[in-house]
């Protein structure tokens, strides 16, 4: 058998493992095995590629693989669960830049290209570049190295349109004569980096779940384009699987916010133009002791976590509180909004880290119908996803977004750092409702106080 046949047969096997692995990722019980299968598929694909006749020198390959492995292992071990959105963003970015380099190096190795190959190289470079810089801007926003607020300036749409026209023109000129077009390629590379920055800066922190999913999809599409460049089936299969999964997640996130993708990408949501109707009334503060009294008397408690819980690193103390409540004969549920936190499923990961059984985690649609029978709803660091203005105030920017109807519970306790507006700068009438009490202060400290009260 010749090596090319062996390689291709093994690629089929790897593709099979990727597909099986993704299928098994669909259920918590089999997910870990699914990930393992997928990684075995990757390992076999890498090993069999190394026997290819095209590869004659291993020195540089080993350097790159060794370096990448060390950095990869260190990153995966050291990162804390609360920083997972940043980690995913960075990994997306690396995938993107790798596709860009592959496209670029493929051109340098063989500049005599036909139109189709030149087009695939351009796509690989363009999407790879956008994914790279876009992911790093997303990382900077998540890490709060730069402001999480949308960055808008006058004429932004015009500037963006000019950039896009520029990249199209440079691409067409390159594709017409790839052999003489190195300087056009430089322009495409530069502009793709610029485009990645421009696309992500007008997006607010609360919309990050959409951006992360979208960049995830891009990294897949970039790999897919690199597959066309290299004429490699497995790259195309794996890349499009990832591309499709990212698009589905993006779509789920948009639906959860009742907004279209273009609205998320271009509207600069939450930049402060409209904050909805002004609210009359007074927020009623509560202290830890009184909160404890209410919780002690409750027979059903529903916890609604948000990004604030991640910031305060309060997930472990929240689990302790849930255990104390259960010992007290109380039923505890966690209600998780699809866009709570900074990436899809962010809250689930944190609660899983804190050992909250996933049987206790409920989706918004399962919790809302029974909300009226809940004695106490504890909102921990969530704001927009529990804002009743989404149902009641047509002037509110988030009007129409599906929210967890915490205000329908008997009592709502909101744990919050201060009385300011949330990330999107939108007024939240929940804080002024008759059945709402505000437990102000650091969420972790407050919950620790409650746990201590229960233990006494």
């Amino acid at each position, binding site marked *: 058998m010749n090596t090319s046949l062996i390689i291709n047969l093994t690629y089929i096997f790897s593709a099979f493992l990727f*597909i099986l692995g*993704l299928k098994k*990722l*669909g259920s*918590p019980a089999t*997910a*870990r095995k699914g990930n*393992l299968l997928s*990684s075995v598929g990757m390992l076999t694909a*890498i090993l069999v*590629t190394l026997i290819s006749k*095209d590869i*004659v*020198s291993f020195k540089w*390959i080993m350097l*790159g*693989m060794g*370096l*990448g492995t060390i950095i*990869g*292992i260190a*990153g995966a071990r050291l990162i804390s669960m609360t920083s*997972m959105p940043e*980690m*995913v963003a960075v*990994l997306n970015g*690396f*995938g993107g*830049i*790798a*596709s860009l*380099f592959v496209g670029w*190096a493929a051109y*340098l*190795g063989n500049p005599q290209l036909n139109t189709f190959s030149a087009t695939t190289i351009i796509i690989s470079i363009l999407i790879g570049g956008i994914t790279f810089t876009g992911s790093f801007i997303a990382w900077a926003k998540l890490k709060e190295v730069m402001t999480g607020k949308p960055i808008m300036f006058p004429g932004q749409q015009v500037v963006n349109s000019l950039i896009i026209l520029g990249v199209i023109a440079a691409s067409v000129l390159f594709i017409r004569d790839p052999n003489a077009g190195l300087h056009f390629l430089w322009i495409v590379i530069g502009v793709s980096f610029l485009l990645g920055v421009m696309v992500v800066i007008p997006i607010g922190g609360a919309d990050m779940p959409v951006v*992360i999913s979208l960049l*995830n999809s891009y990294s*897949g599409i*970039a790999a*897919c384009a690199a*597959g066309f460049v290299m*004429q490699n*089936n*497995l790259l*195309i*299969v*794996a*890349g*499009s699987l990832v*591309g*499709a*999964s*990212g698009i*589905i*997640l993006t779509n789920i996130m948009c639906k959860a916010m009742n907004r279209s993708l273009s609205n998320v990408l271009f509207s600069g949501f939450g930049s402060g133009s409209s904050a909805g109707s002004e609210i009359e009334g007074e927020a009623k503060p509560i202290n830890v002791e009184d909160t404890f009294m209410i919780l002690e008397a409750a027979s059903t408690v529903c916890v609604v976590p948000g990004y604030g819980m991640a910031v305060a690193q309060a997930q472990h103390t929240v689990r302790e509180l849930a255990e104390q409540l259960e010992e007290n004969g109380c039923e505890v549920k966690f209600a998780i909004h699809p866009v709570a936190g900074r*990436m899809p*499923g962010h809250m*689930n990961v944190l609660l*899983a880290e804190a*050992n909250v059984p996933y049987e206790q985690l409920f989706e918004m649609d399962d919790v809302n119908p029974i909300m009226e029978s809940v004695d106490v709803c504890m909102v921990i660091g969530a704001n927009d996803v529990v804002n009743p203005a989404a149902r009641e105030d047509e002037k509110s920017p988030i009007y129409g977004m599906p929210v967890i109807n915490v205000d329908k519970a008997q009592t709502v306790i909101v744990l919050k750092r201060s009385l300011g507006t949330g990330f999107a700068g939108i007024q939240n009438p929940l804080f002024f409702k008759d059945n709402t009490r505000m437990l102000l202060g650091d969420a972790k400290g407050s919950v620790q106080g409650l746990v201590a009260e229960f233990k006494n």
Partner: protein
Amino acid sequence: MDTTTIIYLTFILLLSIFLGFELIAKVPSTLHTPLMSGSNAISGITLLGALTLTGSEGNDGLALILGVAAVTFAMINVVGGYLVTDRMLEMFKKKEGSK
């Protein structure tokens, strides 16, 4: 690249996209983060392309540097992605029954 190859590759692309949609649409929201980091690791498959380019004959200068950089970044993507996903899924798993 001849037309037959293009059509053949496009065929594969089309079928994989549909397969991807079918596979992912059923994943519960609890697993969205591991799904994302896991599929992210798969997108590091670009590594295969990077390996072929870097190891091929007569590579020097810029092309070689780009190749090595591509191998490194893709490898970080693959190794980091799978490990971090495994770390997350381990937490999802271990609490059935015992704490």
